[in-house]
């Protein structure tokens, strides 16, 4: 049995570990950079000027706070819990990704790094990075698997419009994991002038903690907003988990509130016994991209490709803090299939006039299991991490004449 900690919010330890997860599994070339980043971030987070600059941009450029919206018709539809949506899709660039990118770009500026690199799967993180690089006049290089470049053409064009160089990655399986490998190779080759802006709560320490801190604004706002709206804390939280940054951002401020139930939703693709991307539910602990976490791999420890209809969730790993929250039992990780996600995508569009990202639709897909069984005064928050405009062509093609 895993020992319950006194606080679920105190991690990582000084070695960058959440229990056995996390760490710094990188080549020596990168170690000095990672240690310098850790130090620079520690200094920045204690500098009121850094925080003030970030707050200003969050308000005036990103458009925060994002609303906590009572989804009245969705609530009526399920007839149970009172459902709120945290509207991260209303942020500039259309997803939660910008919260993290802003923090890292301001840090890169403090560190005097003129060149930013990033990996992207669906393109949301790439677009957010390209956007802030344009805003601050930084050179931006985005690595994207060649397969993803083909299926997310509009985001590729957006990045280019914003002045970024998009490099299609032809190695390995040509998807997000290979884009991450290639970004790490770039960083190894350009350590002195380059800042690696990782898009999720994964990678070597300090990235999982740093990205979590930047995304925690989601949960912190939710806490305040729910107090204002209902005079108390929410009873449950629901978010999709690929790498898991939107989920960690919502969850983390509530980890030490034992009355708050926490649900992450992984993508089970065609099903857990078939092609999927559910690292916690269908993988086991291993080491990839600088940290120990749940990973999809074969018996020989070779990484397997994740599959999900959502390009933002088909990563074969997950943030190490999620692995730890799963093992300790503080959070529960469910799964939603491609079909369930598409069903939820349509449902939210029709009932609330909001087209969700296919990623976020995985969280919405579990409402049918969770919401009806809760009393009407149960306050449930779903993180609407991104908008679905980018997914409309894909869903239209999938539904054919039915759309």
């Amino acid at each position, binding site marked *: 049995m895993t020992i319950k900690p006194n606080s679920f919010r105190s991690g990582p330890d000084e070695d960058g570990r959440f229990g056995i997860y996390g760490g710094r599994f990188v080549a020596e070339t990168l170690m000095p950079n990672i240690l310098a980043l850790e130090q620079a971030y520690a200094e920045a987070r204690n500098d009121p000027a850094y925080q003030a600059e970030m707050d200003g941009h969050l308000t005036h450029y990103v458009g925060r706070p994002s609303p906590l919206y009572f989804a009245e018709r969705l609530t009526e539809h399920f007839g149970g819990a009172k459902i709120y949506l945290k509207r991260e899709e209303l942020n500039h660039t259309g997803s939660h990704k910008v919260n993290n990118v802003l923090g890292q770009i301001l840090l890169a500026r403090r560190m005097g790094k003129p060149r930013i690199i990033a990996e992207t799967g669906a393109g949301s993180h790439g677009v957010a990075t390209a956007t802030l690089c344009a805003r601050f006049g930084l050179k931006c290089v985005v690595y994207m698997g060649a397969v993803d470049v083909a299926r997310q053409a509009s985001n590729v064009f957006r990045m280019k419009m914003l002045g970024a160089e998009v490099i299609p990655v032809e190695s390995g399986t040509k998807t997000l994991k290979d884009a991450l490998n290639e970004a790490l190779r770039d960083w190894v080759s350009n350590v*002195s002038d380059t800042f690696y802006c990782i898009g999720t709560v994964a990678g070597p320490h300090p990235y999982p903690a740093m990205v979590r801190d930047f995304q925690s604004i989601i949960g912190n706002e939710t806490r305040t907003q729910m107090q204002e709206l209902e005079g108390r804390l929410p009873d449950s939280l629901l978010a999709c988990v690929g790498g898991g940054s939107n989920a960690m951002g919502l969850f983390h401020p509530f980890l030490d509130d034992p009355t708050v139930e926490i649900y992450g939703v992984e993508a089970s693709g065609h099903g857990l016994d078939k092609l999927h991307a559910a690292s916690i539910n269908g993988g086991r602990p291993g*080491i990839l991209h600088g940290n120990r976490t749940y990973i999809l791999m074969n018996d020989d420890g070779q990484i397997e490709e994740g599959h999900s209809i959502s390009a933002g969730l088909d990563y074969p790993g997950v943030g190490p803090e999620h692995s730890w929250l799963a093992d300790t039992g503080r959070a529960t990780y469910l799964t939603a299939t491609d079909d369930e996600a598409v069903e939820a995508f349509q449902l939210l569009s029709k009932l609330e006039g909001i087209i969700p990202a296919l990623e976020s639709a995985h969280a919405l897909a579990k409402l049918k299991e969770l919401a009806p069984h809760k009393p009407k005064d149960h306050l449930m928050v779903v993180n609407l991490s991104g908008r679905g405009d980018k997914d409309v062509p894909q869903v239209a093609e999938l539904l054919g004449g039915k759309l």
Partner: protein
Amino acid sequence: MTTRIDTRFAALKAEGRPALVTFVMAGDPGYEASLDILKALPAAGADVIEIGMPFSDPMADGPPIQASGLRALKAGQTLKKTLQIVSDFRKTDNETPLVLMGYYNPVYVYGVDKFLTEALKAGADGLIVVDLPPEEDAELCLPALEAGLNFIRLATPTTDDKRLPRVLENTSGFVYYVSVTGITGSATPDFDEVGRAVARIKRHTDLPVAVGFGVKTAQHAAAVARGADAVVVGSALVEAVRKSLDNEDRATEKTVKAVTDLVAELSAGARSARAVAAE
């Protein structure tokens, strides 16, 4: 504890000759062909052999070694078979030092204790695991040293004087100096700078210093060997393997010779450095 690596470097030092360290991927292009290549290396001039343990996501390697690993995996190579190839090699060669080189995940999944026991039993002498910096020594480095295997660490141009002692602390066998800030098989390094870096490392340790990444020709080998104790060549050798294959990535009658010819050239290059230096 003295390993074959220690013995070999001591003998070469006495001879006044630099070592040629050759890297090839276990199982590329297939198990048998790979074993044939390994067996032919010492006679061609390899003093130490690094055997790559293929991994699907080699984040510090350039295209040639990535492709080599994928060919091996496609041909059915596993970590278990890589330990087997060590043991098959040892049936006819009990002297040439063998270093297993790769990434941590396959070893972690195999089980650290089981891996160390079997690697020793098979006849391996040392390990290079790219994604285990000193900060993660408790994972594999310390258990490996305890078990009697060398743990060879990479030092890089970014490893400054302040950090170098930390990197060298639990390193044994030799130190592997990465000549470029980059991935394997990258651009040719600045050999004058490499010479200064090797001298810097030697101020901190008595261990032999090997230099690799970007060494492709006999001239490069000669340039490196002027100051270093060993020259490491990898990408150029796996490229020689690739170029010798048929359309379906199978070995041909040219494969072993393609590798041994290049090794012989590199070996001559490395030896020439000291001959010139002695004049």
